[in-house]
């Protein structure tokens, strides 16, 4: 991170690149983001007005089931959506007060990796199979910092040691397929934090891993986040995974935020029927022999999102108003927002 206290853009550091400084600790400001995909069958509205913020040193969990728009949100922030078919008709993604969506391509490419980095779900396919892992980490330094080969390689070893890869010096020349799943994800994390990004987005970082390794990766992420005061966005459908790590969470459904709250409140007392359903569908050890509660039905087709509240066909509490009126995200308690007409009843239930 930069040491200057002046807000906004600071022109030219040692490498001649522009550096960014957060204003009042605010890193990301996603404002009314819309993303749609133009397909042969029509326009699929994947994101319909999502707004959230991320501060320095804060970790934000984005929760939701498949197709709720979590990953598309991340891709839109990173600027790696394929356009076309994707289109962003509305909205802004402000990084340190500068809108990334209107930024010229070459500048935005520099922001990627150096300022905002991302970790993917499947670390095996996220690493190039024909290059040694050390080379791939070193590539970050060579490309963004113009380091020479041996310096970059030394940095790669240092990073591999930081993400706790045993015998990093020997393993630096190994290829991705010679590592286990958890180790590959550590390498991916090493690549992502290589340039000290201010924001790290982890898109389902533990989904492809087994449970014990999941916990290790999450605690590694948490450790790195606290050590470097990064803003961390955790995207997951697994509410159990983020419980310890995230400060704040937003729940997405059909491309909208349906609830935002700190993790503690969200788990103890959800304010939206969808969140409640998600929490009830987590298998629990102390409820042996009972049928697992699942949310009936399927998420809506994004080509034909139902009128009113998108969740109404699956909601146990749905009334007539839910089928007509789209509930806005409103504050239901201090620091808590819910997009449900009956949020108060849900909290009390």
């Amino acid at each position, binding site marked *: 991170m930069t040491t200057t206290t002046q807000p906004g853009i600071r022109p030219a550091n040692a490498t001649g690149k522009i550096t960014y400084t957060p204003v009042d600790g605010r890193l990301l400001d996603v404002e009314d983001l819309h993303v749609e995909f133009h397909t042969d069958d029509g326009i699929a509205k994947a994101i319909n007005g999502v707004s959230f913020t991320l501060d320095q040193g804060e970790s934000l969990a984005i929760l939701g089931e498949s197709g709720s728009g979590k990953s598309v949100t991340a891709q839109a922030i990173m600027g790696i959506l394929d356009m076309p078919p994707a289109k962003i008709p509305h909205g802004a993604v402000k990084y340190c007060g500068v809108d990334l969506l209107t930024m010229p391509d070459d500048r935005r490419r520099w922001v*990627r990796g150096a300022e905002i980095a991302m970790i993917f*779900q499947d670390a095996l396919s996220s690493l190039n*199979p024909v290059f040694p892992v050390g080379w791939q980490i070193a590539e970050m330094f060579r*490309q963004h910092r113009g380091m020479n080969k*041996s310096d970059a*390689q030394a940095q790669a070893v240092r990073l591999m040691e930081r993400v706790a890869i045993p015998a990093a010096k020997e393993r630096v020349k190994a290829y991705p*397929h010679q590592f286990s799943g958890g180790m590959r994800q550590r390498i991916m994390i090493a*690549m992502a934090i290589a340039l000290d990004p201010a924001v790290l987005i982890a898109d389902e970082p533990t989904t492809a891993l087994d449970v014990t390794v999941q916990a290790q990766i999450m605690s590694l992420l948490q450790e790195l986040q606290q050590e470097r005061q990064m803003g961390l966005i955790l995207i997951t459908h697994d509410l159990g995974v983020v419980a310890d790590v995230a400060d704040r969470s937003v729940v997405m459904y059909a491309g909208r935020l349906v609830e935002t709250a700190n993790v503690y409140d969200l788990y103890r007392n959800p304010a939206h029927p969808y969140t409640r359903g998600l929490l009830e569908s987590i298998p629990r050890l102390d409820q042996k022999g009972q049928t697992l509660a699942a949310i009936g039905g399927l998420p809506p087709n994004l080509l034909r999102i139902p009128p009113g509240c998108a969740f109404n066909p699956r909601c146990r509490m749905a009334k007539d108003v839910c089928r007509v009126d789209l509930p806005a995200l409103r504050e239901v308690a201090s620091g808590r927002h819910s997009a449900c007409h009956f949020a108060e009843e849900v909290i009390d239930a």
Partner: protein
Amino acid sequence: MTESATVVQAVEATNAAGDVGEARSLGADAWRALRKKPLFWVSLVLITIFVLMAIWPSLFTNTDPDNAVLRQARERPNANAWFGRDIQGYDIYSRVVYGARASILVGVLTTTFTVLLGGAIGTLAAYAGGWVDALVSRVTDIFFAIPLLLGAILFMAATQPRGKPYFVIILLVVTAISILGWPSLARLMRSSVMQVLPNDYVQAARALGASPWRIIRKHIIPNAMGPLIVVSTINLGAYIAAEATLSFLGIGLQPPVISWGVSISDAIVGLRTTPHMLAFPSLFLSLTVLAFIMLGDAIRDAFDPKTR
């Protein structure tokens, strides 16, 4: 440890990670893997012999390939003429040695051009997608509609190679075959790039700030070039054979130019009386093709970390 001593100094300047050795590139690792393969060495020795033959044929024979001893025409292989003599009384061994130049030039140059052209166009089509892809694919289809030999015959007939200098004729033959040979490689490269593109590591490279050019060079081409290497080395033989066919039809290389193709086509008339006339040039042609195929195989394996 002497090798790493110099590296340590450079490394210690930036941090305390210490001796990590030289950063290895894909090429260096591939070379390491290649060195251990007997297949590679066999093919390399063969190719070296043929290349030497092409550059300095006099290293291999003192006999003048244009010296026709009509009295000894159709002689079987013997101590004086190792491979025997052909209908004109030429020494076949000498003609095989001198014929290497034209054949290898045509094979190697055509392969190089088709790989560069087909590979680049195929990669571009797959990476750019959309209308670029559609346009390139249709153009490829148009070229596919023209049979290789028919097209080459037309090209050669139109450019009138007769009487032009040696290298000009060879370049004309190379151009004729290249123009008609690249589309199959372009199509192959396009499909293998399309298989590589959706991989997460391409997406990850974008997310970590790599430029399109860098993504193509470092992520797409190394992962997509396997099939291209294999097919193009097999094609090398086909290109030499195509040159032979053109020569046989009287529109490729012409006597007095000596090439394996010319020798093979000359042998057809004496097939029953002097089979060795066909056997030796064909043997050398087959060995060359085999050597390049083995080399291609070894290289492809060396560039794939999982087969090392």
